């Protein structure tokens, strides 16, 4: 996105209201609570929003143009549009040399994660998840009375695969977020392939869901997508989202790829026409422009390197981030750091127990935003006060 457009957007943006209700807590814990309220923030200045792992540039102009192209069909139900969900499914299937029956859409990958937990777990078939990890599967399991087996990390805060395999015995579903949110670490393709083999040997009926929401940001050469594993192996499926590198968190689209019976089992729970006609038009065009995504990866990598170095200069290190966010060991409670940053106009990530006493998650904004944010971090981390937050979550 050009600078001109960004300036235009800043002019057009309406200020965020602070009112919010309890219903946000269920699904919007992350974006809801963090992005919210500007209480405690410097007045007047536009906040730097680096709390929810969004692409700060939003979707490309080609995507927005495609959406405008769908305006004449916006009054029709999505199944009456010229490009239905089937059109996006076909494009995704082609991209991965799969069939349409291997692809499932959702209004964000969140809905798919929810329904996977409903389809494959029960009070007698537990969910296995790293913890902390993306919280949707764990939250859903708790709502439907599914026991949750939480798995920890190795010394580099990578998911402990051996423990994951051990915990999988008799489980309904293993949720493996790779790269993992919030720790930002990734496992390479061979490690994932070995894990899948080991789980299938230890617990053949267990479903394995590999969430690759941050796939497009990974630069570790040992990593490639597990979609090939999902297409070759029963009971394994991969979720992807348009919310991250594609810059479409507000448009709500994601997908899953796996064997047809797996897709069908999750699809049974799918809400009819949850993807808007406009979203479908935008994602179809967005998916076709890989160069845009490659450029976004480069941009993110450069801004991330700048931010990591700036932290290092302050004596602060973090995990090996393979995503569009950092998990930094700030050696003090996240709450105090967060409140101090917020007061200076910078919104960073929420608490991630059991790391909330030491680590903070910081999303990667634009270079300009991170240059400003780093100055705030310097002041806050240089200060000796670590007041605890009043609004701890």
């Amino acid at each position, binding site marked *: 996105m050009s600078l001109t457009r960004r300036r235009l957007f800043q002019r057009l943006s309406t200020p965020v209201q602070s009112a919010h209700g309890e219903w*946000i807590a269920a699904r919007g814990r992350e974006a809801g609570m963090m992005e*919210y309220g500007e209480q405690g923030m410097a007045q007047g200045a536009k906040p730097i929003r680096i709390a929810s792992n969004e692409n700060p540039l939003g979707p490309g102009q080609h995507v927005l143009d495609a*959406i405008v192209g769908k*305006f004449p069909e916006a*009054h*029709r139900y999505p*199944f009456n549009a010229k490009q239905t969900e089937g059109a996006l499914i076909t494009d995704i299937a082609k991209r991965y040399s799969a069939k349409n029956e291997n692809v499932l859409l959702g209004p964000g990958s969140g809905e798919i994660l929810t329904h996977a937990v409903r389809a494959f777990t029960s009070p007698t078939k537990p969910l296995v998840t790293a913890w902390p990890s993306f919280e949707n599967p764990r939250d859903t399991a708790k709502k439907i009375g599914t026991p949750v087996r939480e798995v920890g990390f190795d010394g580099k805060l990578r998911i402990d695969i051996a423990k994951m395999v051990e915990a999988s015995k008799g489980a309904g579903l293993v949720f493996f977020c790779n790269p993992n949110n919030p720790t930002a670490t990734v496992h390479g393709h061979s490690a994932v392939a070995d894990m899948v083999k080991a789980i299938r040997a230890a617990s053949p009926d267990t479903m394995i869901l590999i969430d690759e929401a941050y796939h497009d940001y990974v630069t570790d050469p040992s990593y490639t997508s597990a979609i090939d594993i999902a297409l070759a192996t029963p009971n394994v499926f991969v979720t992807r989202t348009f919310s991250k590198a594609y810059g479409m968190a*507000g448009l709500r689209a994601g997908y899953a790829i796996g064997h047809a019976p797996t897709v069908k089992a999750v699809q049974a729970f799918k809400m009819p026409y949850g993807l808007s*006609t*406009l979203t479908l038009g935008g994602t179809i065009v967005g998916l076709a422009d890989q160069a845009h995504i490659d450029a976004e990866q480069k941009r993110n990598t450069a801004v991330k390197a700048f931010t990591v170095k700036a932290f290092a200069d302050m004596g602060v290190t973090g995990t090996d981030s393979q995503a569009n966010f950092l998990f930094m060991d700030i050696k003090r409670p996240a709450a105090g750091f967060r409140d101090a940053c917020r007061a200076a106009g910078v919104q960073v990530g929420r608490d991630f127990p059991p790391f909330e006493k030491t680590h903070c998650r910081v999303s990667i904004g634009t270079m300009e935003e991170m240059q400003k944010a780093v100055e705030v971090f310097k002041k806050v981390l240089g200060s000796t006060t670590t007041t605890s937050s009043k609004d701890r979550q």
Partner: protein
Amino acid sequence: MSLSRRSFVQTVGVGTAGLWITSRGREGSLFAQGIQPVQGPAPSIILSSNENPLGTHKDVLAAIRTSAFPEAGRYPFATAAEVTALVAKKHGVKPENVLLGCGSTQLLRTCTHVFTTKTAGLVAAIPAYEECADYARLMGHPITGVKLRPSDLKMDLDALQQASKGAGLVFYCNPNNPVATAISGSDTRTYLSTLMKASPSTTVLVDEAYFEYGTMPGYETMIPLAVDNPRVVVARTFSKCFGMAGIRIGFAIGHKDTIAKMAAWDGVGDINVMALEGAKAALAVPDAWVTAEQKRNEAARSFTQKWFADRGYTPTDSQTNFMFINVKRPAREFRDACLKEGVLIGRDFPPYEKTHVRISVGSMEEMQKAVQVFEHALSQPAKAA
């Protein structure tokens, strides 16, 4: 439809239930997978899905450009809270009384999830809009269908009252899709107050998707009642009057405890920012515009209903942007004949698929063209009745 699916349906009232075919679910599942409903050239007049033929309100589209595009990369939870507050303000309630949904579809599913169980099932008129029944079926919760009154195809409130006792949820679609008839506010309140005493654990979901098109004297919203009664919830949508069917947003209004229960199961994370910003614009549209849209629909509806009635084909008393007409022949026969001339009308609605068709109200210009096609279709003698 499989037999196992039908076996969930018990019938109350006269005769057998007939088929309970899914409506949006059916359309959704068939069409979503890229199976096009129509072979050959696309129809030039679409009267099949109860959409606003004039398109999306211009203020909605303008808001998407100016307010949603700059935020398209962000999770829209803050905007959802703003829209919740604006819906509350518009209807004179508090934000705690409002839950947004990805279309009212999501809210119908949420209600069915939260208020039905394997023992306390769903009760609905048959036919009625099928989202709740589809979801209850998915969950393996029992469904009871209550036949309509044969004389006017209105909901049979006595039979419904009887069937509602012990239900988890009653789906009360008013006006009722696909038959287009409505129940007056006073009759609805009598039904509700009787049920509240007779069946203390039953919740009623009043679906007012077509509210803006109701013109019958005495028709009214149940929002004021729902806000005070924890066992009544009202669902509304922006899909119809505001022409936002492709954008996906609706809302529920109810008692704060009821809304809290629903929100605890499913939140606002599926709603896109274009829908949210569009809804903000729609909420700011003056009431006079809504009245004008109601009159526009009513004029095209009256023209078409009269055209059919003059030829001996009786429509129900439509309070919506669609009509349910006895064409004295199988819907399929009439529909296929219309489609050959470029007019797409509604699908089969058992148990009336042998006699009745559902036709959405297009623009006056479209309806003037469509009746010429209907003329041709009806000039053929019915092959099977």
